[in-house]
């Protein structure tokens, strides 16, 4: 019987420092993920807001969204590393490039989804353009914007795992090294840790979403279930859900 739990429960692997310890890898993974997310958000959010607010260049937002979804993540990472060498920065560039499309597409979609009469009222009451954007449009677009960020988070966590193949750090190292050495317990440890990390990050981002999105804008499950004659809003939300999840 193969002992899958050997690596996971070996205390030698849990030293907080020192190369190839689980906490070390975990820390690397989280660091890469967060840095990538911050950078890609810094790029994609302003562009998405701009395109959504002015509705010019919509084509770019939508096309990029589709492109990002169909681009094989593994291929892009290996491509950049093969061209530029086995360093950290090509991987980060690839990660950022993969995270920008979902954030951009969802931010754009979010701003477009804002009810025009609220914007009309805001303008008519005397808000200036930037005030309208940040005090009305963005809060109302929050659900979609956050969903884009959450998608990107998933995407980056997963791709960072695979990047270990190109000698990248992070928890993926356990998987790749384990595979190379046929150490099944190491593979198991890596897989479990990665899965747990991803789930934990997803839950954390859900908590952030609850904190940041105003209760007045959240989709209410109860309303989804009510069999009202005019159920048009639910239809778009179902489509949104289908479209917003990406890896």
């Amino acid at each position, binding site marked *: 019987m193969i002992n899958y739990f050997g690596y996971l429960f070996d205390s030698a692997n849990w030293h907080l420092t020192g190369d190839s310890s689980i906490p070390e890898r975990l820390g690397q993974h989280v660091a890469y993920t967060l840095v990538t997310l911050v950078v890609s958000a810094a790029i994609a959010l302003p562009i998405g807001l701009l395109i959504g607010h002015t509705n010019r260049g919509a084509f770019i937002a939508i096309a990029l969204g589709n492109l990002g979804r169909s681009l094989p993540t593994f291929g892009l990472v290996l491509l950049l590393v093969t061209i530029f060498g086995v360093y950290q920065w090509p991987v980060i560039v690839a990660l950022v490039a993969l995270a920008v499309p979902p954030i951009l597409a969802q931010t754009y979609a979010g701003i477009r989804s804002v009810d025009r009469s609220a914007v009309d009222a805001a303008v008519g009451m005397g808000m200036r353009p930037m005030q309208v954007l940040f005090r009305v449009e963005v809060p109302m677009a929050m659900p979609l914007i956050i969903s884009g960020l959450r998608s990107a988070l998933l995407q980056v966590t997963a791709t960072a795992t695979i990047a270990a193949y190109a000698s990248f750090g992070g928890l993926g190292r356990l998987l790749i090294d384990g595979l190379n050495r046929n150490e099944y317990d190491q593979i*198991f440890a890596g897989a479990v840790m990665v899965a747990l990390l991803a789930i934990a990050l997803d839950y954390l981002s859900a908590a952030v979403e609850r904190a940041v999105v105003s209760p007045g804008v959240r989709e209410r499950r109860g309303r989804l279930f009510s069999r009202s004659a005019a159920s048009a809003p639910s239809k778009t939300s179902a489509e949104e859900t289908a479209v917003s999840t990406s890896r």
Partner: protein
Amino acid sequence: MITYVRNNHVEIVDNLVQHVWLSLLPVVIGALLALPVGYLAVRKRWLYQPVVNAGAIIYSIPSLALFLILPPLLGVGYLSALNVIVGLTLYTLALLSRTVADALISVQGQATQAARAMGYRPIRQLFGVELPMALPVLFAGLRVATVANISLVSVGALVGSGGLGNLFTGGFQLGFVEAIIVGIVLSMLLAGLCDVGLVLLQRWLTPWTRTGART
């Protein structure tokens, strides 16, 4: 580039073919399984949240991790293609169960109430009224699942079933940029083709959306 392709076209085609069935088979199986799951999640309201949560958890697990947790669970070798197929099927199931559920919920309204009043029984109504009406939303989900799967198959190269992903790993090992580029291009073309194909299929299945009214 051209020389590379000419010299290796057999290998390229082999990988492409493997990629096609590795990505599409899970979509079909996953979609078929998602129908009853999604339907139940709507019929028994208490099931909805658990199903959605389970789906979210599964979907958040990175592909490589999933492909490597399955072998012990399935009792097969690490390099078995079954890992990739089961893994991708799980992803598809996780994604589409929610799509089916939400789609069915979204079509509840005047048409379905009328159908019930006319005497449709539940299953007949499901297939005759609700699913057809839900097709646009279902297809939106199908398209996402298909494109995602096509991208994820390449990760399978790390566990012996990678389709075009083999071009990525091969190219990386040998420093052949051409191989990787060909792999990427073919993967995206495949994704694009499937997407278009699904759109056409959707149009064919929903003639009533073709005429006039736009949302």
